[in-house]
């Protein structure tokens, strides 16, 4: 199979997009990636395929076929184009399909853009939209939401492993501190750990969203887009920077209805996806220098860090307490700020995570750089864990 690498990255500032239309937002990230790679947007661009990752472009923004629209506005015709939807894991899935397109020999160069513009609707319309990924009769009709399942999952993990609300706040503050050094992060304000966990006023200013998860344990609603340009490693000379290799991709699905999961405190799809990715890359958890783990709810970062093999089950929160997961620690996680502080435009997230790993491996993560990073893992979590994609990137030897 042909080797595939990433030669260009782009990323808009996550938050409230007011720079034009949805396609404008995708275009901004796209041209950043093309510029980063040294690709001119005119004759001879050489892009064979465009994948756009977005969950809500149809539902919220009332636009279908958005990949085709993007190809035209970027003047990349007649490149092939599809829109990829895999809930919050759309981004990583789009990268996986781009990988497959090149590895199969069908394409040499694929542009992936993930984007979501959620802030055009109200908070509870947004919550409702996200809930559409749940089982229609068994879950959605009950008014169940992603936060509801995250709350129930957190309750079980707290009972079984002794994780506390304060532990989740520790992870949240760590992510916010990382985001201060990430210019494209949604939130640059850092909450104060004592104020949100132990202060007398904490229970009111950090109220429950879905008990026992509190406001500061849950990611914000963000607009934003991120892009990567994939190329065949053996045809990478025409680009400005050395490619970062996609060494492994793994994906796994689990039951749709969360109540049907075999072990309710496990994230089985995360474990399987990571195992498959390690196998393909010929690497192990110990080889990872940095990771972006999908932390829409801070409990997910803790459990994912265990399921991907960084820590024993039940030890993830202890590692966080001990500072092992911050930049400079033994296993830096979410150096970008994670979904918590960087933001979570659903379709963009999977691509955004890969952008951060690329920056880390290139040595471009100013202010939050993991020294000498050579391999990184990104985990993109779809639904409430019923479809997970893991991606491993490696830096080629000089």
């Amino acid at each position, binding site marked *: 199979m042909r080797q595939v690498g990433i030669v260009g990255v782009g990323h808009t500032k996550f938050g409230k997009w*007011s720079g034009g239309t949805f396609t404008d937002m995708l275009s901004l990230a796209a041209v950043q990636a093309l510029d980063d790679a040294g690709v001119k947007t005119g004759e001879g661009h050489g892009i064979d395929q465009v994948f756009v990752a977005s969950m809500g472009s149809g539902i919220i923004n009332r636009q279908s076929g958005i990949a085709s629209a993007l190809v035209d506005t970027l003047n990349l015709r007649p490149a092939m184009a599809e829109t990829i939807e895999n809930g919050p894991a759309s981004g990583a899935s789009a990268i996986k399909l781009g990988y497959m397109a090149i590895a199969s020999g069908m394409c040499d160069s694929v542009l992936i853009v993930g984007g979501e513009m959620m802030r055009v609707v*109200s*908070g*509870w319309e947004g919550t409702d939209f996200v809930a559409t990924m749940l089982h229609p009769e068994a879950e959605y009709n009950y008014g169940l939401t992603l936060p509801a399942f995250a709350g129930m999952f957190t309750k079980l993990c707290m009972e079984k492993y002794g994780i506390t609300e304060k532990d989740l706040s520790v992870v949240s503050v760590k992510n916010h501190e990382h985001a201060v050094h990430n210019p494209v992060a949604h939130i640059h*304000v*850092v*909450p*104060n750990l*004592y*104020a*949100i966990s132990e*202060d*007398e*006023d*904490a*229970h*009111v*200013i*950090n*109220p429950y969203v879905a008990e026992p998860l509190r*406001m*500061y344990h849950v990611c914000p609603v963000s607009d934003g887009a991120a892009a990567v340009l994939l190329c065949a490693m053996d045809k990478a000379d025409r680009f400005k920077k050395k490619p970062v290799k996609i060494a492994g991709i793994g994906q796994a699905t689990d039951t749709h209805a969360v109540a049907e999961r075999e072990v309710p405190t496990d994230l089985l799809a995360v474990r399987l996806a990571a195992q498959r990715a390690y196998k393909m890359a010929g690497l192990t958890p110990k080889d990872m220098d940095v990771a972006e783990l999908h932390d829409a709810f801070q409990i997910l970062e803790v459990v994912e860090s265990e399921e991907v093999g960084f820590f024993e089950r039940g030890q993830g929160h202890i590692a966080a307490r001990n500072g092992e997961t911050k930049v400079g620690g033994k296993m830096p996680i979410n150096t970008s700020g994670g979904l918590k502080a960087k933001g979570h435009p659903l379709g963009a997230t999977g691509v955004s995570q890969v952008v951060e790993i690329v920056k880390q491996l290139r040595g471009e993560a100013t202010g939050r750089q993991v020294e000498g990073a050579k391999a990184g893992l990104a985990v993109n979590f779809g639904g409430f864990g019923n479809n997970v994609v893991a991606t491993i990137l490696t830096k080629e030897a000089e």
Partner: protein
Amino acid sequence: MIVDKMEQSLRPVETPLPEYPTKYITLATGEKMVIRQITRDEVPHILEAVKPLMTVEKDFYDIVASRMYSELLGYYRYRVKDEYCLIGTIDGVIVGIVNGRTVDDKVGMSYHTMTLKQGLRIGAQLFAAKMEYHLDYLNQEEVWIVAESPNGFKRWMIEYELESRPEIWHELGGVPTYVLTKALWEKHKASKCTGRRPVKEELLKTSENPILPETYAQIPGYKRCAK
């Protein structure tokens, strides 16, 4: 101004009301917000903080700011009976304003809640402080409330489980009223209202001369010009 017989007859009779006891809340960033009542002669200064938002359509700021402006002006010019205004300040900068009045010793009429610095639930805290004033310090039995924005409706009508009383028409445009009764307040106040008293001298001092915000996130590109 000269308070002659004419002016006297245009003014409402004022009921002496106890002052709201100043408190402070530690917000999520660790910053301390001081919540205190303002005096009548502070109104012109506070109006300058309200003014820039009177033309911001988003999130209903224009109607809230415009109505609040006229209410505060009414308070200043002695044309509204028993009105009060509370402000929240962080390091002296005004971050939120709430107001209302008492109808009689039993009933309060909530006017408006306006957040200047978004993102820290300041509006929610100031609304709770207002309710605290009516029900815990003025010892009233209920407060009449309406909302202009969906956000407001969600935060108050739904979260406090306000009693719907469509037969009462609120002063603000005669729209059907929702009521916070003493019973509902007792049920929800633990999870909604917080803060510490008394406020230490040093912290209190910061709020003495409220500072007008230089910029407003709601108004991109705005910068207050020095007078």
